């Protein structure tokens, strides 16, 4: 089996190398893409959409339909993780561990018994270790700045590298950092399971809704210049604002998907304890 796999891999790799020879050389000015396609976007992006970073205007405006389905793919990935891990295997275990906060005494309760929520006892993981003050405090200090940077990346995607996708991943990573440095339960208190599950399709719906709004206002799907009458700006700035609306939708969808996937994978769908 291993030998067959190796042969298949080598043949596929040889085909890929053979096909790559036909590509134009890197940064070849006479290649088809460089002769008429790229110059159009480089020259007209600022005129059409008033967005200095033409990668953003290309991703969210000229080929906005592609990006919408990319967001849908991300959403589907999170949904599949949820269905595979949470719905099929996600049952709370019978044994629970609690720790008395003042004395540090650990209590183990079997057969599904619980201690009602109080200040004296906190629930702990099976593999509980005493929290490290330096790691906890360091991450607590870093998380607000990470989130601020993520919001900057989303909002400033028009004129610098970045956008909804990267900003959303960084926002999600800040919550994942909280889950790693404290525990999964702390992160779930901040970002509840239901909130994550609702915000994820809402992000995709913001994107598709912006497109539908353009359709209702009488132009093509995702042609943001239709928003000019609603936003009271000229059609060119309306395209810039439409890109921002779409990026916010992408950011919400990607952020919640990252948190969703992490929650399901790290707890094997049980949501009782993470890494």
């Amino acid at each position: 089996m291993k030998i067959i796999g190796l042969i298949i891999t080598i043949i596929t790799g040889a085909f890929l190398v053979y096909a790559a020879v036909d590509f134009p050389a890197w940064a070849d000015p006479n290649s088809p893409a460089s002769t008429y396609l790229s110059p159009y976007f480089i020259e007209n992006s600022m005129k059409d959409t008033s967005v200095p970073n033409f990668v953003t205007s290309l991703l969210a405006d000229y080929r906005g339909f592609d990006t919408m389905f990319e967001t849908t793919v991300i959403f589907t990935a999170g949904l599949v993780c949820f269905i595979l891990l949470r719905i099929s295997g996600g049952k709370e275990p019978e044994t629970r561990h609690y720790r008395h906060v003042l004395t540090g005494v650990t209590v183990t309760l079997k057969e599904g018994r619980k201690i009602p929520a109080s200040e004296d006892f906190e629930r702990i993981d099976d593999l509980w270790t005493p929290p490290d003050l330096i790691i906890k405090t360091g991450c607590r200090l870093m998380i607000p700045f990470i989130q601020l940077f993520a919001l900057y990346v989303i909002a400033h995607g028009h004129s610098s590298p970045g956008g909804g996708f990267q900003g959303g991943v960084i926002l999600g990573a800040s919550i994942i950092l909280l889950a790693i440095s404290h525990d999964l339960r702390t992160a779930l208190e901040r970002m509840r399971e239901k909130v994550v599950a609702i915000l994820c399709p809402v992000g995709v719906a913001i994107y598709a809704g912006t497109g539908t709004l353009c359709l209702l206002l009488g132009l093509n799907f995702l042609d943001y210049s239709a928003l000019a009458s609603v936003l009271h700006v000229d059609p060119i700035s309306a395209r810039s604002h439409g890109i921002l609306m779409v990026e916010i939708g992408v950011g919400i969808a990607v952020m919640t998907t990252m948190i969703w996937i992490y929650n399901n994978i790290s707890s094997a769908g049980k949501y009782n304890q993470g890494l």
Partner: protein
Amino acid sequence: MFWQIDLAILTLVVVTAVGSLMVKDLLGAAILFGAYSFLMCLLWSIMGAVDVAFTEASVGAGVSSVFFVAAVFRTSRRTKD
């Protein structure tokens, strides 16, 4: 751009890619894959594709490494083959 840096990064990309396939310890493979993603991010930024490099750094080297580590933690650390 200096071709020496380009060559060194390309060599390291191949080394980390093969290494992450060959290593028996899956946690090591996950970390090597993160290193591979980070080197690819450097290559993208050398080529001037800053947006792609940003995505590669945040998704490839950042979040997907965490997902791999979480999956290894919940399954087994050594491969069977």
